[in-house]
């Protein structure tokens, strides 16, 4: 899976959790999940669980702390994938 494909899949996972008034089109690798995309911090756990299911990986407590932006989340996913 290329980085582009991983990014596209991640965007689809994140889409339903984006806050009111934030445009999906504005989402970039630099977007911060909580500060830019206005995602409820309680929903970050649900996003991570969806990521685990979609990519068939297990994300540990240390890795979730690195998933602040879309780009850093892609990095974690790529690192975890076999």
């Amino acid at each position, binding site marked *: 899976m290329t980085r582009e494909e991983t990014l596209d899949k991640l965007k689809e996972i994140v889409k339903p959790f984006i806050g009111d008034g934030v445009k999906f089109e504005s989402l970039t690798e630099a977007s911060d999940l909580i500060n830019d995309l206005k995602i409820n911090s*309680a929903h970050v*756990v649900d996003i*991570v*669980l969806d990521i685990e299911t979609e990519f068939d990986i297990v994300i540990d*407590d240390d890795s*979730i702390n690195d998933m602040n932006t879309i780009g850093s989340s892609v990095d974690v996913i790529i690192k975890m994938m076999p």
Partner: protein
Amino acid sequence: MVVNTSLDMDIKKLVRDNLPYRRPFLFVDSFDELSEDLAIGRYRYKEDEFFYTGHFPGNPITPGVILTETAAQIGLVGLGIYYLIKEEKVGQVVPLFSSAQVDFLLPVYPGEEVRVHSQKEYFRFNKLKCKVKMTNERGEKVCEGYLSGFMIEKS
């Protein structure tokens, strides 16, 4: 804290006694079952609960928000405290209710006892999500839905 987890009856009482709520906002009488994936408990609404005077005057009905709170105290916080007791962490962590999606099916009147059945969906990254179902004494479903919350370390 010294905990003897081999005595099943004691842990149910211990969880009940370690819930952070007190009257008039404690809605747990006892737990019938507590395990890694399941919490079952009950509460009987007293005739003189504080909310009946206003909800509604002359026509007391248990508010949906109180049914939700009851389901959360038994199903979510009860299970969370059970985990904490197993890890000997009680007292250092505060439960935080983060989301509820609940359907209300039947009214609950003063004096009625309800039973909450809560099945763990997941407990990851300190977030506990449960599928809960509440029934009345006739075994009829009163409400059901999903509740989630966090266990936050006391600073």
